[in-house]
């Protein structure tokens, strides 16, 4: 707001980016929709910076905010920016479990709880006793047993996968059976209740509001949920995408987290990209071009605006029998089931068959009430879900291509003898950057080799 007061920044609150305008190969502006009036607006610029976050909501349920979406990044991709490693989706182990079909989002409980909490399930499948009724010798502290060196502190992907495995084996707890216990009772005994509350009090409050249970008395129930997306628009070291003049910052780009983000590093990236990198790099680009030659009267703006209006018109005209949310939930189910923590060829191929079918159904049978000329939240959601419907396919294509277990996910065909994730550096030590070739066309893959000079890649082992 200091920059606003200084007149250097103008905030367009309640405006949504609808497309990127590319003129002669350079990003020269954006098309936005004013969410209050429905007005489609043109903004010309010498460079465009996207800081539009990740695409976790492709899965419908995630820890992301409800408005978080892929639209800006997806539009940039369709205008020529390469999309890198979209299948790298981090599934966080410590989230509050789903309560029912109308769940709208999932809430993350900080990972720090695993410093003191012990994760367990009943040894016997289908055990419906309350946690207090299950004696110590009938509990399976599966992370401690399986990974004695790391115990409850194994990385996110390992913790998530093992929780899923326990639940798949019928040992999940709670009403849905899709949860494991995170038990703080030993820590309370060791450090005292006051100390544990000092460390995690805010999390306990959040948990109790949602579940109605007090974690100091009853073990918390947790289950993995989609959290962070390491993939994103490809950028160079200057944070510029493959479209000159289009810069991408934060979770929207692919650059910093490899295939498995580590705790707290998203904040680091946000600060580094915005505070240190872009101020030092964008000037170089601006020095190389002749600024100010394009304005909003250029035909490309009109073209883009027409496409945006056409899309809005088609969404409003479909007048079908199903709500946007119904379609989003269905898409989320496909993604979660076939392109989640563990993936295999047959499942991914099924997803590649299901997604275009659902997309076709969406455009034919979606019901978007209201008009395009005022505040219409259904229309906003419909536009975002329409883009998720296209983007989801790219995630799956990338997942199918990467026939190795890498970072955050397990590819079932690529396991060690002990069923742990097995990497394949000989064949997959590259960034997969996808180039758009048209809707319903296979995108083309560009491989950016990963070169490691000072470290040696090796198989992870937490046993």
């Amino acid at each position, binding site marked *: *707001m*200091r920059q*606003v*007061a200084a007149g250097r920044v103008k*905030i367009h*609150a309640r405006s949504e980016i609808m497309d990127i305008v590319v003129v002669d190969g350079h990003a020269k502006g954006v098309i936005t929709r004013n969410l*209050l009036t429905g007005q489609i607006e043109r903004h010309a610029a010498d460079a465009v910076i996207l800081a539009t976050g990740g695409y976790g909501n492709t899965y419908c349920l995630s820890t992301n*905010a*409800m*408005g978080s979406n892929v639209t800006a990044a997806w539009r940039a991709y369709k205008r020529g920016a390469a999309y890198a490693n979209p299948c790298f989706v981090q599934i966080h182990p410590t989230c509050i479990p789903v*309560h*029912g079909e*109308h*769940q*709208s*989002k999932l*809430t*993350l409980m900080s990972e720090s709880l695993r410093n003191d909490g012990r994760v367990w399930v009943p040894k016997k499948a289908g055990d419906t006793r309350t946690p207090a009724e299950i004696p110590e010798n009938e509990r399976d502290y599966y992370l401690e047993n399986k990974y004695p060196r790391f115990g409850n502190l194994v990385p996110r992907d390992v913790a998530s996968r093992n929780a899923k495995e326990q639940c798949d084996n019928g040992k999940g707890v709670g*009403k849905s059976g899709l949860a494991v216990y995170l038990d703080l009772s030993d820590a309370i005994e060791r450090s005292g209740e006051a100390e544990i509350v000092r460390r995690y009090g805010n999390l306990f*409050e*959040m948990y109790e*509001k*949602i*579940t*109605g249970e007090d974690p100091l008395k009853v073990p918390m129930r947790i289950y993995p949920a989609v959290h962070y997306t390491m993939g994103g628009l490809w950028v160079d070291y200057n944070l510029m995408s493959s479209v000159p003049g289009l810069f991408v910052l934060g979770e929207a780009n692919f650059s910093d987290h490899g295939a498995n983000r580590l705790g707290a590093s998203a904040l680091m990236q946000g600060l580094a990209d915005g505070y240190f990198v872009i101020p030092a790099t964008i000037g170089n680009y601006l020095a190389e071009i002749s600024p100010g030659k394009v304005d909003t009267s250029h035909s490309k703006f009109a073209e883009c605006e027409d496409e945006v209006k056409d899309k809005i018109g088609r969404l409003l005209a479909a007048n079908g*029998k199903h*709500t946007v*949310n*119904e379609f989003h939930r269905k898409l989320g189910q496909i993604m979660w089931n076939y392109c989640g923590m563990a993936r295999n060829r047959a499942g991914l191929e099924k997803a590649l068959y299901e997604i275009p079918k659902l997309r076709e159904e969406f455009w034919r049978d979606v*019901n978007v*009430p*209201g008009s395009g000329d*005022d*505040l219409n*939240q*259904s229309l906003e959601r419909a536009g975002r879900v329409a883009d998720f419907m296209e983007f989801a396919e790219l995630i799956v294509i990338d997942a199918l291509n990467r026939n190795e277990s890498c970072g955050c996910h397990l590819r079932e065909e690529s396991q060690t003898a002990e069923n742990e994730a097995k990497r394949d550096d000989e064949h997959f030590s590259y960034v997969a950057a996808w180039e758009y070739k048209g809707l319903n066309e296979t995108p083309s893959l560009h491989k950016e080799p990963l070169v490691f000079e000072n470290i040696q890649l090796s198989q992870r082992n937490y046993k």
Partner: protein
Amino acid sequence: MATINLKLKVWRQKNHNDNGGFQDYDSGPVSTDMSFLEMLDVLNERLTLAGDEPIAFDHDCREGICGMCGAMVNGYAHGREKSTTLCQLHMRHFKDGETVVIEPFRAKAFGVIKDLIIDRSAFDHIITAGGYISINTGGAPDGNTTAIPQEIAEKALDASACIGCGACVAACPNAAAMLFTGAKISQLALLPQGNPERAKRVKSMMSRMGELGFGNCGNERECEASCPKNISIRNIARLNREFIRAAF
């Protein structure tokens, strides 16, 4: 899990110029595990399929940190539960058959945009008037050379917990923004970095507050009671002290 049915009286208003009014709805069966906003989601799905326009309401993070959501629920900002945003309010706090009245936060400085959505840009204008430090921060070493006692740092952090939801204004009989402004003033006045501009800041923000149509504090303490982030009215006392200090 139990299921309850509620009678909802929801404020519907097409736009800022429309008069608006209450509309009655049956909630249909609501799981007590659902959040308040999920209850509205389900009602909206039903309205959509019935050809009616769904109820517009602001929301985003749905975990009490973004400050987008908020409505008066039976006369209480964000509902009656303590330290809770509307998205964190869960249906287990309601009784089967209960009538629930839902209306937007009301204040002269917050216009209704549509249904439960209000315009809180007045808060942005207050911050723009001086709720920041006018120089760029240096690197980490600069921070480390300025020792701040833990107790002071905690107070500043507590004040900075404000999410700008507007519940304090909606709950105040005078529609004052004193808690909101006091939180920002306190956060900056408590820290050495805020010191050089403290007089200028408080005068500028206070005068902007008045221009925007917010009222004055009448010591009702409704703001503190409704604040989802437990911002203390001590911050209003500090705001007043800063204001008096700035006059000399």
